[in-house]
């Protein structure tokens, strides 16, 4: 490969070390690639090339991510840059500080470069809820890239970013990674600080990497993970090398296959593709164990109560006073609030705030919210029981390949069901990763399918090892040829 933008982070760093190119060369090549393909893909909301070049000129390539540009989901604050969460509510907002993940990336030599499109306030599964623009799937521009971190996944697939940060509340890293044919990791709850991530559902949100190899995801995890006094939910754990288990095989690994994740109504081609991939895991040495996660079918219902309840509380901060959109000439304070929020929020955000307010309201709190929290206990227990028997779980990431833009936009419930295989992970607080496992043909285009591995809480190192072992044998050329032609 001649173009540095085709490289993974690990090959890019090899190129830096042997002097094949410099971080400034790479940023120029990246900018050229973005100019060529982003008019089609629409992954970037904005980018500040001059600031990035200034950082690249000073980059220390001996650092863990020295001179590596990384795209940032528009929900994560980077000092001095815009941070809109793809919402009119935050039009013109400039971050006064760096999120903890950003200061960690900077200390490791990485260059935050570009604001990646997303569903407004991370609410959605297709990135169609962005107030600013559509992002298109690089494999077929008529289709959605998944969401909510759709810009983050599409840019990596289109080779207009080496890696990006996304956030995952119910599948928002793994589902777009699956639909775009790249690797995306949702770390365990408490593994990565959310300080500086605009909160959606605080008991579920995690920041994680999207990249063109499992190895690259591990390198980013080595930098961003760890206790942060500014996020009291981040866990104080001994530091760990997330790359330690890469390069192995699957011998002796017990993989659980949950029967509830192979349901009627999922795309038959996706199912076949995932079943083939699971057989391949067996060839690589894994022992397959049939397991049951009996409360799986309740996960979407539980999620849309808990996540909307938390969102209605978190988004109450957007009152048009200290920051954010403010309606013109309010006649009184109530009018100020009601019109500022009406004008600032898009439809899906309003829908979810209303639903969340309802399930928390007097008379309904026990029937909906407390009930959902109790079923959450059962879902969590399903996983605890399963992990007594197996090292990790293997299943599909998404029930369907990328669907067409506009196909589900008027049917929120159908859109919510796109996350049926990813949501339980967040409710249980465990970790999960999606790696490409094949292509399916649909109306003349090839579309990627993701294989999902789920791991015990805080077992990312093993999970990455398993995903890497599969990826090297089973992802074929999806990761290297994915996206638009060179």
């Amino acid at each position, binding site marked *: 490969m001649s173009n540095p933008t085709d490289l993974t982070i690990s090959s890019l760093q090899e190129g830096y070390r042997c002097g094949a190119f410099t971080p400034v060369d790479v940023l120029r090549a990246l900018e050229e690639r973005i100019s060529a393909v982003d008019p089609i893909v629409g992954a970037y909301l904005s980018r500040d090339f001059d600031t990035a070049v200034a950082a690249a000129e000073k980059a220390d390539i001996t650092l863990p991510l020295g001179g590596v540009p990384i795209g940032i989901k528009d929900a994560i604050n980077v000092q001095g840059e815009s941070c809109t969460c793809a919402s009119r509510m935050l039009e013109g907002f400039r971050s006064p500080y760096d999120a903890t993940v950003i200061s960690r990336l900077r200390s490791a030599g990485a260059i935050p470069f570009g604001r990646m499109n997303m569903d407004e306030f991370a609410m959605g599964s297709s990135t169609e809820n962005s107030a600013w623009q559509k992002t298109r799937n690089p494999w077929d521009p008529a289709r959605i890239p998944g969401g909510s971190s759709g810009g983050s996944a599409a840019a990596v697939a289109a080779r207009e970013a080496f890696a990006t940060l996304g956030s995952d509340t119910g599948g928002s890293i793994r589902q777009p990674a699956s639909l775009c044919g790249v690797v995306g990791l949702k770390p365990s709850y408490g593994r990565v600080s959310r300080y500086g991530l605009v909160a959606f559902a605080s008991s579920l949100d995690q920041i994680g990497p999207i990249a063109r190899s499992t190895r690259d995801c591990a390198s980013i995890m080595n930098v961003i993970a760890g206790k942060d006094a500014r996020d009291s939910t981040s866990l104080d754990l001994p530091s760990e090398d997330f790359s330690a288990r890469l390069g192995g095989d699957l011998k002796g690994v017990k993989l659980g296959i949950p029967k509830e994740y192979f349901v009627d109504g999922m795309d038959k081609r996706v199912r076949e593709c995932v079943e083939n991939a699971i057989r391949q895991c067996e060839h690589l040495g894994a022992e397959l164990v049939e397991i049951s996660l009996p409360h799986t079918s309740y996960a979407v219902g539980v999620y849309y109560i808990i996540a909307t309840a938390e969102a209605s509380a978190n988004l109450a901060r957007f009152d048009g006073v200290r*920051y954010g959109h403010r309606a013109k000439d309010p006649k009184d304070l109530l009018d100020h609030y*009601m019109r500022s929020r009406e004008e600032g929020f898009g439809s899906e955000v309003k829908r979810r705030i209303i639903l969340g307010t309802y399930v928390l309201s007097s008379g309904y709190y026990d029937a909906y919210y407390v009930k959902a*929290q109790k079923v959450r206990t059962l879902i969590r227990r399903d996983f605890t029981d399963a992990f007594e028997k197996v090292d990790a779980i293997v299943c599909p990431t998404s029930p369907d390949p990328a669907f067409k833009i506009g196909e589900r936009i008027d049917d929120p419930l159908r859109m919510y069901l796109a996350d049926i295989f990813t949501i339980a992970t967040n409710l249980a607080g465990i970790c999960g990763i999606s790696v490409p496992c094949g292509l399916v043909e649909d109306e003349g285009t090839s579309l990627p399918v993701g294989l999902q591995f789920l791991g015990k809480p805080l077992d990312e190192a093993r999970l990455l090892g398993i995903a890497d072992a599969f990826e090297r044998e089973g992802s074929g050329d999806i990761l290297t040829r994915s996206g638009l032609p060179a």
Partner: protein
Amino acid sequence: MNSYLLARMSSPILDVRDVARLARIELTDVEAATFQSQLGRVLEYVEQLNALDVSSVEPTAHANPVFNVLRADEPKPGLDRTSALANAPHAANNLVIVTKVIE
């Protein structure tokens, strides 16, 4: 009859306009009508949780057993005033200007 039973009998009885007002969101007539039917379907879907008996199950608020994270109560430097006000839609004299609350 308590409100819980009333809710269960006639559920889902979400009145979108009423709840939107609680959430401080003005809705157009079109939005109110669309959300009413869309959220009605979501609530119907959620009814499936009623198939489970969870009377003896403890609720889970979040995934990790972490409680009472404390730190020393010491003042530390924070955002300076200029940065804190930079994103305010109305600011003057180093203050955020709010809509009049008291006549």
